[in-house]
């Protein structure tokens, strides 16, 4: 175990994994929270269909997202000129698309539940528009944190999308999950196992943190 954790490349791989997944989470949060909130309180034709679609997209297969982004970014694709294929940026793009629906759908649910409870009271107090939206978002902030962490969990654990658009290039686009897949097929089980343990530890720590934050918030704010 000791020489696995001392493996020269291991921490580079871990760092790249975190960089890619955290960037994707940041982007997906920036787009997904407002999108989810807007769908939660908006009334427009086709709303039900949008919600069903969003919920369905939570289960997007990573390899399909990878394939779509691959086609977009490949030399002959519409965005081929950007030259992003097989770079960390392409991996961030693919993971952003993958987890955007998760963050949007979960925040839509949280905001809609709160809105249903608060709407009349806020209107009675003469609070509407942006002020009402901010009040509700602030009140469900811990549920939104859970939505964001669900996205991060999904991003850091998936292998299909980053494998296809990143190419698993040593030292450039190799992340924990793609390294595990490769080392396993090569028969280097100790390294694969070591990476697997690190990956699980990260996911565990994140979820424990989310749980504790939410518990503390529940006790403090009800």
């Amino acid at each position, binding site marked *: 175990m000791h020489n696995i954790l001392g493996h020269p490349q291991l921490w580079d791989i871990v760092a790249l994994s975190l960089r890619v997944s955290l960037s994707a989470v940041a982007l997906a949060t920036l787009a997904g929270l407002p999108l989810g909130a807007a769908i939660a309180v908006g009334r427009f034709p086709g709303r039900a269909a949008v919600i069903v679609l969003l919920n369905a997209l939570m289960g997007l297969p990573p390899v399909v997202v990878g394939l779509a982004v691959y086609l977009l970014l490949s030399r002959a694709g519409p965005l081929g000129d950007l030259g992003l294929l097989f770079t960390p940026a392409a991996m961030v793009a693919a993971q952003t698309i993958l987890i955007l629906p998760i963050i949007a759908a979960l925040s839509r649910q949280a905001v809609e539940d709160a809105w249903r409870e608060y709407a*009349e009271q806020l209107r009675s107090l*003469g609070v509407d528009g942006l002020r009402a939206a901010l009040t509700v978002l602030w009140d469900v902030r811990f549920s939104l944190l859970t939505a964001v962490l669900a996205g991060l969990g999904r991003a850091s654990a998936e292998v299909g999308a980053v494998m296809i658009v990143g190419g698993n290039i040593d030292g450039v686009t190799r992340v924990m999950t793609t390294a595990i897949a490769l080392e396993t097929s090569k028969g280097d089980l100790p390294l694969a196992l070591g990476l697997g343990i690190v990956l699980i530890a990260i996911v565990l720590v994140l979820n424990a943190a989310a749980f504790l934050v939410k518990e503390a918030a529940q006790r403090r704010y009800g």
Partner: protein
Amino acid sequence: MILPLRLEGISFRHIIQPLSLEIGAGPSTIILGANGAGKSVLMRLMHGLLAPSAGRVAWSGPDARRKQAMVFQRPVMLRRSALANVAYAVAAAGIGEAEKIAMEALREVGLAHLAHRPARVLSGGEQQRLALARAWALHPEVLFLDEPTASLDPSATREIEAVIRAFDASGTKIVMATHNLGQARRLGDEVLFIHQGRLVERAPVERFFRQPGTAEAAAFIKGELPWA
């Protein structure tokens, strides 16, 4: 002054049949009726939370929105302290030093000692008193109450009724929906009796109970009395 409030031929889908009435300042008005009679909907139409399908809700003065408040059957509290909940309403209304006014309102309903507790972990009765404090801080000309004690035990109900009396004494017009006859008698001056979306009878409380003018009202009083 935003009173009198005039409802001019308002209806709401099939729930409220076309109805006209005027509600003036002064006596406390009780909207009485069975569950599903349309009391809550009528009150929401008056308060402007629902738009009537037809007809008009007309207040007599400007800025009517800010001069009325409503307390719901189930209090809705934000995830913050009791004090912050009241201060939020004061700040939204823009009527001065939010914290100071909020603290005075909490004192008024006897919740000052819980000011810094999270509002949503208070008991049902305390949350309802907090909702009344939130309304108190706004010094409304009219206070709408939608079955404010329907889910409370007798001692919490007594406390809520005491605060409602304090509102009345301070000059706030009380408009309260209830199906509790005892409460209607204790707090009301006049009764609007609603039956299946229609205003069936309007009478002073005393006369309404002694000598109901319609068969529906008589049946309601008779049927409800055992639980009053």
